């Protein structure tokens, strides 16, 4: 491989990119914009759970309990119901996620220490929100019980001292933003390069390229270089947005993050070249690209749905999804401050992936030219 020819191809690619301001803007601004918009828009935090209240007791005691729910910050009282029969329509129509039912003799039962049951009806269709709401309600109720019970300090035989690591407040943004960077780069990287080969064919310059003495590896690498550069800038910009705008901590080494990004980008963009060179039809290439990168990156990468929860067979499948490794790396570096040692497995995964991506790209190219 000649370094001179390699850089000549890279220079040509840069010049071509610079003359096409639209794709340049797209390449630089798109990831930034998406991180900005989605980082702001999406959250998994369950706050302000919509609560409907059916207070059949209507005493100061029952109102105190309702206030305890309202003031917790986790529930917001949206509706007051009159009859038990109203609970179902409210939940079916989704006007509330939970209904708190305080029975008629609540205050009397509390005073008599007969054990006063309070019902919480949850819309279980959204299991995640319901589970979390149940936990919050439990805590609120225990607090209320401790208040009204005469035993002041309920003695606990075993106390659980909990400490949350890496993300002390359990804020979902800290989990989403590093994941988002990885997912967006997986989706965009292949797209950027799949366009460059398509462009050569469209403009008829591919034949000229074939007629020159460049080796196919030089073409593949030369074309990749500028895009890897762009991808790195994208990662850096998106990370900056995460850190400075969303307050996500970057605890680990930024250099390691960039190094891992290079590995990832080489693979993803190599794959883009392979797809567009191998499937001559643009429509097919895009269909394939979307099937291969889009949904797997979102759903099988551990971005939202934890890989540990998947059945074993699917966990094996997820090893073929590069976003999986990249997410482990971004989250590990951003939140856990782990280094090379803990990330070795993922980095090896990324290296294998990029070797495959580049190899496929080079092979497809040879067939193309022949």
């Amino acid at each position, binding site marked *: 491989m000649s370094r001179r020819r390699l850089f000549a191809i890279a220079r040509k690619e840069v010049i071509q990119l610079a003359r096409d301001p639209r794709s340049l803007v797209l390449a630089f601004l*798109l990831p930034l914009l998406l991180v900005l918009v*989605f980082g*702001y828009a*999406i*959250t*998994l*935090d*369950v706050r*302000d759970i919509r609560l409907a209240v059916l207070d059949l007791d209507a005493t100061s005691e029952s109102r105190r309990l309702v206030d305890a729910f309202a003031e917790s910050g986790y529930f917001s009282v949206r509706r007051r119901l009159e009859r038990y029969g109203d609970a179902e329509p409210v*939940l*079916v129509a989704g006007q509330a996620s939970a209904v708190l039912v305080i029975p008629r003799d609540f205050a009397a*039962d509390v005073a008599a220490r007969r*054990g*006063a049951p*309070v*019902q*919480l009806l949850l819309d*279980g*269709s*959204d*299991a*995640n*929100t*319901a*589970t979390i709401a149940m936990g919050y*309600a439990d805590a609120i109720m225990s607090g209320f*019980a401790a208040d009204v019970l005469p*035993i002041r300090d309920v003695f*606990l*035989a*075993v106390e*659980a*001292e*909990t*400490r*949350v690591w*890496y993300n002390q*407040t*359990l804020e979902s943004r800290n*989990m989403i933003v590093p994941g988002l960077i990885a997912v967006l780069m997986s989706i965009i990287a292949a*797209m950027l390069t799949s366009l460059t080969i398509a462009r050569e064919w469209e403009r008829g310059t591919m034949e000229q390229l074939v007629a020159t003495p460049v080796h196919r590896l030089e073409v593949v690498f030369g074309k990749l270089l500028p895009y890897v550069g762009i991808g790195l800038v994208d990662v850096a910009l998106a990370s900056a947005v995460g850190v400075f705008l969303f307050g996500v901590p970057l605890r680990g080494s930024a250099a390691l993050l960039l190094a891992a990004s290079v590995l990832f980008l080489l693979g993803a963009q190599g794959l883009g070249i392979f797809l567009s060179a191998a499937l001559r039809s*643009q*429509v*097919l290439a*895009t*269909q394939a690209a979307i*099937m291969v990168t*889009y*949904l797997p990156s979102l*759903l*099988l990468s551990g971005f*939202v749905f*934890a890989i*540990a*929860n998947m*059945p074993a067979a*699917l966990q094996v499948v997820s090893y073929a999804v590069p976003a999986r490794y990249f997410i*482990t790396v971004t989250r590990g570096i951003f939140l*856990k401050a782990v280094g090379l040692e*803990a990330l070795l497995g993922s980095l090896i995964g990324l290296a294998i992936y990029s070797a495959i991506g580049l190899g496929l790209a080079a092979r497809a190219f040879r067939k193309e030219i022949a």
Partner: protein
Amino acid sequence: MTRLSPFRIRQIVRKEVRQLLRDPRSRPILFVAPVVQLLLFGYAVNTDVRSTPLAVLDLDRSAASRELVDELVAAGYFETVIQADRPRELVEALDRGQALIALEVPPRFSRDLASGRGAAVQLLVDGTDSNTGTIALGHARRTILAYSLEKGGLGESLAIGPRLEPRAWFNPSLESRVYNVPGVIGILILLMCLLLTSFSVVRERELGTLDQLRVSPVKPAELILGKTIPVAVVALIDLALITAVGTAWFDIPLKGSPLVLLAASLLFILSGLAAGLLISTVSKTQQEAFLTMYLVLLPSIILSGFFFPIHSMPELFQWVSFLNPVRYFLEIVRAIFLKGAGPVVLWPQFSALLILGTAGIAVAIRRFARSIA
């Protein structure tokens, strides 16, 4: 508008069907890919926090400490993956992500417990995945509290105080898959509609066959309808196929009426096709169509309520999501499947889909008519 000719529409439909099925490579994409994807992703979309990997450092090694660990594992929420000997190993297990939660039982645990002084254990939680962390922490705390009350003989005194009786309706076992599989169905159908229609007009334009169509007596509306009908049929077959597979395979109960579901599906496909046709008539080249589709797809998924709840989003994005057909489809499908809701409750979502679909197709036809005039 002059009257449409059913004959000419039929001719366009025939041409489109031939084009769709001609390439043998595209046939599996039409009918097999959606089913395979549903089976794959149906398993993935699971937020139930069960069998969370647990690392245990038991420095006490007593019957009491083993009992505590057994209690944690017995409920099915945790699975011991690592038995550590030194604190250092707990840190490593969390750092490497081998365990998401770690329990440290101090050496004096059973003695403290027996003496009545009160014992303490340490729980370390990996907060990287905030959702799993929150739920796993809740499970662990509840289990330890129950253990603690039992050991402290406090089970009775708590029974005299006010207590909460939670009941989950519609999905008593709180399985998240039941809620999420309909989401996957919606996304897959949207993807199908976009893939098949985004290129339909723009490809004819690039190949130059649009000119041939222009000199034929076919009217723009007839052309658009003729192009849309076969895709609608394919999408409907796909939808029936993956709904059947999804409900049977993943055991998702259909409480509502299948007819209402069919009506909702037709409306959703209509709006999906409208989105694709709009992309196709707005774009000048196939590449542009591809890029636009790529960009439209992401917000359609992320702002649909599929995995990020809409009511937690900032107001502005809640407004934006009103333009997203997937949002309405998900609301409808989840309500039909799990709550058995009918049109009486769901009419706002039905009307929204109808408006988005018809308006989109009307705009697409107008733009197209102007562009070839």
